[in-house]
């Protein structure tokens, strides 16, 4: 004889959808960079690393450990979701996992960008930034 039984107790607290995005702010630099990299399109892990390097002119380089450790927690926080595995033609058709922002992730990255833009305005008003082109990038 062989038997399994499970008693299921489903908690009634906290649904993902009703969470407050403000509660996650401020974001760590790694999380913010990953959210920015995924803001325009879904990417695989290495695609995220490349996007971050390009957008920061090579000033920010993220290692695989930081990347996947952050992805793991961002998935758990509901900021990201996997959008499936697809073969990569450049790599012997090895399958890669792709990630994209959730609706919650989009709200969080917008709020964080707005928060930073506000700080830049403060810096501007105290004449800490020389050119308007730097601040203009945050509008």
């Amino acid at each position, binding site marked *: 004889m062989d038997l*399994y039984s499970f008693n299921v*107790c489903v908690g009634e607290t*906290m649904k993902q959808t009703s969470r407050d995005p403000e509660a996650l702010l401020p974001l760590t630099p790694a999380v913010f960079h990953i959210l920015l990299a995924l803001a325009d399109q879904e990417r695989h892990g290495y695609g995220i690393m490349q996007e971050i390097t390009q957008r920061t002119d090579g000033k920010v380089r993220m*290692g*695989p*450990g930081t990347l996947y450790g952050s992805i793991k927690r961002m998935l758990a926080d509901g900021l990201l979701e*996997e959008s499936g595995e697809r073969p990569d033609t450049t790599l012997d058709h090895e399958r890669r996992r792709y990630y994209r922002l959730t609706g919650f992730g989009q709200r969080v990255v917008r709020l964080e960008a707005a928060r930073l833009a506000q700080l830049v305005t403060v810096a501007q008003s105290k004449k800490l930034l020389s050119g308007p082109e730097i601040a203009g990038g945050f509008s």
Partner: protein
Amino acid sequence: MSTTPPPSPWLLTSSERLYRSLLQLYPRDFRRTYQREMLITFHSYVSDTLQAAGPGGLLRMWSLVLYDLLTTTFVEHYRSAIQAIRQLSGLEQESFMTNLLLHLDVGAQTDIGQKRLTNEDSMLSVLPSDPDIMQQRGALFIVADGLGGHAKGEEASKLITEEVNILYYANQGPDLNTTLLHAVEQANRILVEQNTSEGRTVEIMGTTCIAAVLHNETAYIANVGDSRAYLIHEGEIKQVTLDHSFVVEQIREGKITPEEAKTHPQRNVITRCMGVPEVAVDLFTEHISHGDTLVLCSDGITGNEPESPVHSWQG
């Protein structure tokens, strides 16, 4: 940078080998989910670095990777340790309730049937200790009943439970239903290959397989053979799966009565079985709610008492 020599395959393969062994520093749960992805990412990273900046660039890249590895292995172990402490101190239950919307009490029981010398049943329950994995992939339960009298039923049921477990958590599609289906189908292919490689064509190594994934308020159940899943909801018992059994199919078609089935000479014949190429896997999705009980069992219980299978163990 355009004048750098072509990338050396030796540098690439030795870098990969070194990185693969360094990944052992991460906690096991983390490796299970991300090792494959990290190796693919590392491969691209090394290839592109060698192409763009040659061996000098590779050296700079390694210094970044080593720094990254040291800090993040520390972070991942720290988080694992915190998790273990929470489990020990009883805080875990609360975190399960708030983060996962699911708490499980699991009971398991197996014993060797009266007629057989070995127990050909295998069972496995996986409740990932990592809350992130639990939240993304859910908990997995498998019962496999090796075919009685057939060659190596015990080995087959063990192989299937282990492979389904590995494949389910390794293949990460966003759709758990499909992931479970693929895991069972892939595990079947491994068993078929083993039969073929060991020259078994007539008396194959086979087993039934029932696997359930519990994720939030949903149960996904995959079934091949005559093991069963029951769902008990508010005192009512529902059989979720359909037996792939010759006599049950005959009853369903009205060709024999349940009474005749009890003594039918082919009552032990199953119509689908793991170990047979391209086996069709049944998939069921059930909503589960607070207080429900899900039961997976092999034919061993139900075979004795086909009309009231539940009473024999729900004392």
